[in-house]
């Protein structure tokens, strides 16, 4: 298992921040996922070994956070919030729209591997509800049309 030099530098640096090794687990997982796309068994074994944790522990933590995944996702992971503020401002319709537009349901990935889609809990953008997050970018005050535009932009990005 090899990570980039940048990952290794960050990892070494982070270890110095905490009294116990296990404390760096969550950021380490996040950086590893950024690099590998998802947290494969191989990645889990490697990180568990480095931090003296059981693989079970690492998997339990991954399962706790919706940002972390053990399955490959599309290049762009579209996460639409469906908590109370967003719901009040049309999240349901937005979700339905996305599903139709992308042709996939919750936790699905398009056949071309470009988009994944999932409903998530509050992403902390309630003031601009309804909101969604695509990878690390936020998109707010969404409507069906706005969403279409956003998705098209991502699509053109790769072409």
């Amino acid at each position, binding site marked *: 298992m090899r990570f980039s030099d940048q990952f290794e530098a960050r990892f070494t640096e982070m270890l110095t921040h905490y009294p116990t090794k296990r404390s760096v687990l969550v950021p380490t997982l996040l950086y590893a996922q950024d690099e590998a796309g998802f947290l494969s068994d191989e990645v889990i074994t490697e990180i568990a070994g480095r931090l003296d944790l*059981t693989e*079970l522990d690492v*998997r*339990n933590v991954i*399962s*706790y956070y919706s940002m972390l995944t053990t399955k490959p996702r599309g290049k762009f992971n579209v996460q639409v919030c469906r908590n109370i503020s967003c719901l009040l401002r049309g999240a349901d319709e937005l979700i339905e729209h996305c599903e139709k537009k992308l042709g996939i349901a919750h936790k699905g990935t398009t056949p071309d591997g470009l988009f994944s889609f999932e409903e998530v809990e509050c992403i902390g953008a309630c003031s601009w509800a309804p909101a969604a997050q695509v990878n690390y970018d936020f998109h707010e005050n969404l409507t069906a049309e706005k969403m279409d535009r956003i998705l098209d932009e991502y699509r053109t990005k790769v072409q």
Partner: protein
Amino acid sequence: MADSPKLVNLTVDGKPVSAPAGTLLIEACKNTGIEVPSFCYYPNLSLQGACRMCLVRVEKMPKLQTACTTGIAEGMVVVTDSDEIRQARKSMVEMLLGNHPLDCPVCDAGGECELQDMTFSYGAAESKFIELKQHRDEQQWSPVVYFDRPRCILCYRCVRVCGEGMDVWALGVDNRGAVSTIVPNQKDHLECEECGMCIDICPVGALTSGAYRYKTRPWEMKHVGTTCTHCADGCKTTLGVRRAETGMEIVRGDNRDKSGINGDFLCIKGRYGFDFCNNEDRLTQPLVRRGGRLVPATWEEAFEVIGKRFKSIVDREGGRAIGVIGSTRTTNEENYLLQKFARLLLGTNNIDHHRTADFPAFVAAIHGKSNATATMRDVYNAPAILLIGNDPTDEHPLLAWQIRNNVRLHNARLYIVNSRPIKLRRQATSFTQVPSEIDFTTFLGGDESRGSNVAREGWNTLREKLRAEQGLVIIFGSEIFGQGIQALAKFAASVPGAKLVCLGDYANSRGAADMGLYPDLLPGYSPISSAAKLHQEWKTLPEAPGMNIPQMFEAAKTGQLKALYVIGANPVGRLNILHSGLNNTFLVVQDMFLTETAALAEVVLPAANAYEKAGTFTNTCGDIQILKKAGDVTTTKPDFEMIVRIADAMGFDVHKLVPFGHGVHADMGQSRGAQSGEADQHSVWLEANGLEPKVSPFDPMAILDEIQRLVPGYDVSRLELMAGNDQHTSIAAMGSGSVQSPELIVPAKNNLFTSGTLGRYSRALNSVIENKDPEPAEEVSAD
């Protein structure tokens, strides 16, 4: 010992309560008889605060508080029962029932389920939830462990006991909130010690066992507390028995009775390894060899054949021509009776057993010293432990539990010296790997000639540390014998308060040794020449030391040994004895199964096992405990009865063997059916009142009398013993012991899932072995 912490005074439900500072509110309440309901709280596990059943009102605190996480404080005023509190608890139960399947009529836990009890107490029978229940299919995680997810109430007891208590860390929690679920370490299955701790600690029926699930209901069983028959640690196990065609069938093992030396603990063998009793290969009829084949016979025929042959051999050739091999799994009473039978009736000292530890050298080394040995309870409480040799995690699971949890809960210092990196090093203050354990003990004893210079430097530092310990418990395995034990005892004598534990392997290995199953030692390790008391009592005793097991087989080969009487042992299988070696020997075997030894016998008698009889066992520490009859296969007999019957068939006056008939006549209750075991309860009452029954020649208590009278160190409180409490015998008070040849000591090398002959016939244990990955599971790190 630290100063005892100061007392804190508080008021609970208007009652004044005081408890040591640092006590949790829930415990302080419990100690005064006020029960605060709880699911997630479990004594001696880390606090969880997950279920919120234990809510109480503490004056001046804004909200209801969880009693399981609140420490007591001076002047605290607490209310544990009010409308507000009942309502809060009721809502908690209602939430838990929200997705609970309510399949109580088929659930294993039904009738002993904590959720049922709480629902009953707080009456959340009606629910505001109208959502459909989320069903999930039951999953099998291992041959032992099954998981029924919808029943789980997420108390995390299982996760904590597996990690903190067992140091296995095989269970975890996936996801979060309402969709959290308990998961096994290998995604869809478990790789673990299969101890079943998680199953028994589960307050509901979410975790169930392959051995018991869907078999019966708790109220249909009778629960008998007895002593485990597998390793030498002596756990108290509660056997659930139920009527069956063949007698009383054991259907469950657990430890609902936490009063034993093992507290919460049982390993897989104590919990699920009882099923050898019900194995279909079990012998149920006496077999006599006719025309070269073993054919069924009646008990009378069998006893007659044995009695005649034994008698004629003794009359013609004397006791020299007969050998006796005893068992490490028969009771003290049976072992004592057996050697008495050999010495008094057969007139021979040709008696031996499978030795797994050098107890004679141990007794020689500590002879006459008071308080020289530690109990199994001491191992849990001692401030410091030195463990030399052995791998308790595999070979002495309870001992390992005591050590681990002593370190975890009492900060004991654990010093390990071993030639292998055993798992307990994870709890150790220091782990010293040595080429050979005996070099190290020799060094401790003052002989500094062994080991390299560098090693000796380390050993010296360790020795200084050990010398500074108060109340050190020194535990050693069979790697240490003879002079090595002398050296260790010498060192122990130089450390104030140090106590020793010598590790043997089988459930009554220690008892077999204590009861004199040696060719050169009488009960209590008295050399044959120095047994004035026994001489007086028995009048005659053979004077020449007898043969040990290898010598007996040698003599059989050369035709000198005319008869061999084997009880609950399989020397032919263990020592690979050739069939031809026994051609001229009349072999009698008492066993449960047709072992390699039994297959060669002239007469085979079907024996009852330790779960099917009364008596006592002595564990490896020297703690003596009672056995109570649980199961019952009607066509078998306890070894005790068979020995007496053979004596009778030889024309011997059995009164001289078993001093019975002096007691009272008593209604002993039923020995069959739902009330079976009543006889045992009567006997407890009679014993407690000084009225010992002893109305039958088959009553082991009559022999226990004799043991207590004649074996020094066994004069423990009979009342405590009968009441099911462990009592410590003092081996140092016994005879002078002897130095044995070390090659006679052969460790059993049983691991967590093997148990000699019993293990071979246990489906539960075999299914786990078959299911195991060939690669041993990697050790995983602690939380």
